[in-house]
């Protein structure tokens, strides 16, 4: 499984997205289940899936899937197709 698939699965699992609901440009305001507890779950899930431990500021600052991809790509985690 590549990093894009792992990221998609992570979001589907955390936000309980249905098939076709995930997009790589998904934003926090697009889905009601992206609540404050989801922010914690995304931070924990990123660490478990990609091995990067986000700071609290970084976690709270993630407002979209592209935000997270940019943060991780700076740390050398590629999401190139």
């Amino acid at each position, binding site marked *: 499984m590549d990093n894009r698939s792992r990221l998609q699965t992570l979001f589907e699992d*955390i936000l*309980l997205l249905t098939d076709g609901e995930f997009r790589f440009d998904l934003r926090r305001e697009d889905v009601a*289940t992206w*609540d404050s*507890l989801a922010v914690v*779950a*995304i931070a*924990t899930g990123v660490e478990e899936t990609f091995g990067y431990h986000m700071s609290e500021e970084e976690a709270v600052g993630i407002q979209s899937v592209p935000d997270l991809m940019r943060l991780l790509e700076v740390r050398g985690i590629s999401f190139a197709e």
Partner: protein
Amino acid sequence: MTALHILLERDATPDRLAHAWSSSGSFALLPDRLPISRSAIDAALRLIPPDWHRDHYVLLTSGSTGHPKFVLGSKDRTMALADVLHRVQVLEDVREAVVALPLMYSYAFVNQFIWSLRFGRGLRLTPRLADPMALVGALSKARDAMLCLTGAQVPMLLRAAADMTFPGVTRLNFAGGRFPQELLPTLSERFPHAAIFNNYGCAEALPRLTCRPAAAASESADIGWPLPGVELRSAGDSSLEFRSPFGAVGLIEAGTFRLVEPTDWLPTGDLGVPGDAGRWRLLGRRGEVFKRYGEKVSIAALLASVLQAWPGEAAFHLEHDRSGEIAHVLTIAPIPTREEARAILGALRLGYPRAAWPVRIVGAAALPRLPNGKVDLAALPNLGDGIEVWKQHL
């Protein structure tokens, strides 16, 4: 030695039970595998004052606390309850009771054994679900029969029955746990001539408090109306309490005998609230309704939602998450496909905030069961074949 006659389950044939019931002395009906030593049993029964050494009986239950508890019943009160059950379950045309539960359970003891004794009806013992095919055989031969089940027995019975129907069962009672409301259409197909009832009570009530026709409600938490003479109340924390003219007259617990006065309110061990038109609604067992991240979580409500989306078995147990918050784990059987797990999660997403979602879902080949068919909750956290199929990352 105690002054009471002790009857162990293996010796409790209907004839011996009938003899113990009709003789004037009090007796105790106990399981073969005693949860405490025989000397502790004798010591506990010796606590019963002499006034109750006649015309009474004792059953042993885990009760609402999970600790062994002796429940002292009055033969007269229990006969009166059998009369009430005869009326509310409309049993006049029923000719026999097919027994699929141990007779030492107050449910089967009163609703089947005592009822059959009181009204001179047949009593057909079966190997229960220890031999599902024998039970299926007995049901297929039944005529104008009453069957008493717990919800936990239904999946096993349906598996054993394959596509068979049981037109000879005309009354199907449920008690002793959550009523499987979502299986009502299936039950109506398999028991096409049966009036189905959801009964509610507890061991201390010996055992019945409410009854409703299954089709009179759409959710399992609806326990219907109190039996005539039974009073229910919801205490400040929603603890469901009762007073019953049929209930226990004494309790022995932790080395103490307690006389139950007619004015005493006893806890059922459940949380409940009044509903519409005199009905009552369960919120869950005490300890199964809690706050998680500020949200009220009801295990009973969650389980009902899960079973709407999942045709297999399901149960929850509690643990703590990384933040120290109380968390609930859902175990389902058999092991679901990813799509099946997503269907369950979709139902949870629609109906509940994130805090109410389980912290993870574990799939297993089968849920661990106690001898009475109920899920062995203590074994859920350590399932050898459990596979994590989803988690919240919390």
